[in-house]
C-alpha cells in the first residue's frame, strides 16, 4: 500500500469528479450459509464428543506430547549428551550430566537426563536440535500425575516410553 501510485489516483479523481460512496455490502448470504452449517451439525447423527477415558482420540500427526529417548539397534540410548537440546530449550527444563560411554564406538553418554515435564512447554525444539535423532515427542497426551515429583522424568523413564 505504501507504493500506491498517487498520480493515477489523482487522474481517477479528475475523471469521476468525486469519490463515489462504497457499495453497501450484503451480509445476508454469508449469514444464511453459516446458519446452514450450524443446522447441518445439529442434524448430524453421530456426536462430536467422545467418552474420553473409555474412548481415546488419535492425535493428528506431528502432535507434540510427552518426550521419549530413543534406543539404537543394540538397545543402547542414542543420546550422546551433547547438550544441544538443553541449549535449544526455551523453558530450561532439560538437565543433563554427561559421563564417559563404556562402548568403543561412542565417547559420551548421559549419566543423568532429566526433563521437568511441569516446566516443559512442548515446543519440540529439543527434537529439532538433536543431531542424533535421540529425543522425540510422542503423541502421548494423557499425562496427569498425583505429585510434582512424578513429572520430573529421568533417563530410565524417558527410555521406557
Amino acid at each position, binding site marked *: 500500500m505504501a507504493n500506491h501510485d498517487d498520480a493515477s489516483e489523482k487522474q481517477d479523481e479528475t475523471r469521476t469528479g468525486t469519490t463515489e460512496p462504497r457499495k453497501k455490502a450484503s451480509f445476508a448470504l454469508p449469514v444464511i450459509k453459516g446458519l446452514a452449517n450450524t443446522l447441518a451439525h445439529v442434524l448430524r447423527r453421530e456426536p462430536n464428543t467422545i467418552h474420553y477415558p473409555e474412548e481415546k482420540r488419535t492425535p493428528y500427526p506431528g502432535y507434540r506430547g510427552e518426550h521419549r529417548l530413543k534406543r539404537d539397534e543394540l538397545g543402547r540410548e542414542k543420546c*550422546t549428551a*551433547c*547438550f544441544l537440546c*538443553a*541449549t535449544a530449550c526455551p523453558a530450561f527444563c532439560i538437565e543433563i550430566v*554427561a*559421563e564417559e560411554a563404556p562402548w568403543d564406538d561412542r565417547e559420551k553418554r548421559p549419566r543423568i537426563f532429566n526433563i521437568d515435564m511441569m516446566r516443559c512447554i512442548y515446543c519440540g525444539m529439543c527434537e529439532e536440535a538433536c543431531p542424533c535423532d535421540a529425543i522425540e515427542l510422542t503423541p502421548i497426551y494423557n499425562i496427569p500425575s498425583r505429585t510434582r515429583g512424578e513429572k520430573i522424568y529421568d533417563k530410565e523413564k524417558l527410555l521406557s516410553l
Partner: protein
Amino acid sequence: MARGDTPMTRWLLNGQEVENPTGMTIMEAAREHGVDIPDFCYHPGLSIAGNCRICMVESNRSPKPIIACSERIADGLEIKTDSDVAVEARNSVMEFQLINHPLDCPVCDKSGECILQDHSYTHGPDRSRFVEDKNIRHTKELGPTISIWGNRCIVCTRCVRFCDEISGTGELCVVERGDRAVVDVFPGIPIDNAMAGNTVDICPVGALISEDFKFEARVWNMDRRDSVCGGCARGCNIEVETLDGYVKRLLPRENLEVNDWWMCDHGRYGWRHLYSENRLTTARTANQELEDDSATSTLADFVSRAKKVAFLIDPFLTCEELSLIHGLSSSIPDSIVGGWLPPKGTAEQFPSGFTISSAKHPNRRGAEKIFGSKVFGKDGKDLLKALDSRKVSTLIAFCGGPAEEGPGSSWSEAIRKARKRIVFSVMDGDWLKGASLVVPATAPLEKEGTWINEDGRLQRARSCWKPGDEPFCPELVRLQQVQMACEIRTRCLSAAGVFRELAENIKAFSQHSHSDLGDGGLPLSRRRARVDSKGGTR
C-alpha cells in the same frame, strides 16, 4: 601514530594508507587497525610457524597470496584481506582443513570455543566435496592430565612449539607425514611438566583434551569471571569458569606483566579442595552447629566482651579483609596481631621467564603493608610466645589455606592454649576440636578483594560465587557485621568500599581504587597516568 623514535612503515591495508612500526608482521599490524585476519597456528606467545595457511592475504609484491602471520610490512606494500583472491584462498584452506576433521562437535569439549568452528562458520565453504574415507588417527593419553584425539588434530604445532619454547621440556612432537601427521609423545616420556595444561588452552581445535575437564560441561553454559590465582605469590591472572556457582575449570588470562598467556598446573587444578568432603561450610561452637546469622552474632559477642585479644592472620586474606581485621584490632586495647605462613613449596623457572613462586600463598605483601613488615616474622613469634605462656585469653585465627591440618604443628599446639579460640577455616580438621567457635572461611577463588603479588602488584580477585547465592557469609561481610555490632562501623560496604577506607587509612594504598586497577592490576607504587595528572606523584 608516532611512537617515540620507533621507525614507522607506511603501507596500504585494503586500500587505506596506514602506518605501523617497522618490522611488524602483517597480521599484527592489521589487527592494530581493527582488521582481523584468521589464524590457527599463530599465537602471540609462540614462534611463527606459518603452517596452517589460513591467514593468506593478497599482496602486490607476490603473484600468489602470502601468509600474514610471517610476512612483515614494508613501505609501499599493498595488502588486501577481503579481495576475491584472499577469500578464495581462505575458503580453500578451510575446506582442506576439514577434509579429515571429524564432525564430532556435539561430543567435543572444545566446541563453542573452537577456532576451527568459528573460522568454518566465517570463512569456510558450507559443504565439502570430499567423498573418500576420512583418515583415522590415534586417540590416547599423552600424560596424566592430557589426552589427544588425533582425528581432530589439524597439526598447527602450537602445542609442540609451546613445549619447546615456553615450558622448555619438549615432550611433544609431530609423527607421520602428510594427512597422517599427528601430535604424539616420545615412547615412555609422557607430558607431565608443570605447564602442560596450557597446551589444551592453545589447541585451536579439540585435539588436546584435559582429563580434568573432559565431559564436565559445555563451554557456552558456563559463567566466566576474571580473577587472580591464589596458588602462589605469583598471582597469575585467570578466568574462573563456573557452572551453577561451582568451579569447573580455570583458564589463564593474558597479562604480559605477570603471567603472559600462561598459568601452571598447580594453580589450574588446585581448586578441588573447595568441594572436598572436609570443606567447612557451617559454623559451630564447641557443642552445636550454628546458623550463619547466629554465628556472626556469637562472634560479635565474643569480640565485644573479650580482653587480651590476639589475631592470627594468614597470607590468604585479601587486603580488604586484612583492613577490617586491622580496624577490629585497633579498636580493642592491648590486642596483638601475628601471622603464620604455610610451608614453602618448590619454585620453578621456565625458559620463557614464567615462574612459579615457592611461596604458596597470594597476599603476604598485602598483610605486611597493612600490619607492618614484621607481622609474619617477629610479631608472629611474639604471638606464639604469648600463646605458649597462656597470656592470650581470646584468639581469633584465620586459616584460608587448602591444608586440613591448619597452620601447622607448632601453631596448632599453641592455638590450643588460648582460653577461647575463634577459628575461621576453609577446611575442617582435627586441629579445630575444642574451639569455642569455628566459622567457615572463603578460600581463594571465593574471595572478593585485592591481593599484592610478590612483585608488589596489586590485583583484583573476584569471587566465583553467584551473587545472592553464597553458601555462607564471606569474611568480608561477616567482619563488617562484627564491626557494626561493636559500634565501630555504621554500614556494610562492598569490597570496593572497604578498599576506599583502606586507601584512606594506609598510605601505601592511598593512590589506588578498585576501578583504577582494571583487569590487569597495577604496581602498588605506581598509579594510572589519569590519576597522575590530578594529584601529582609520590
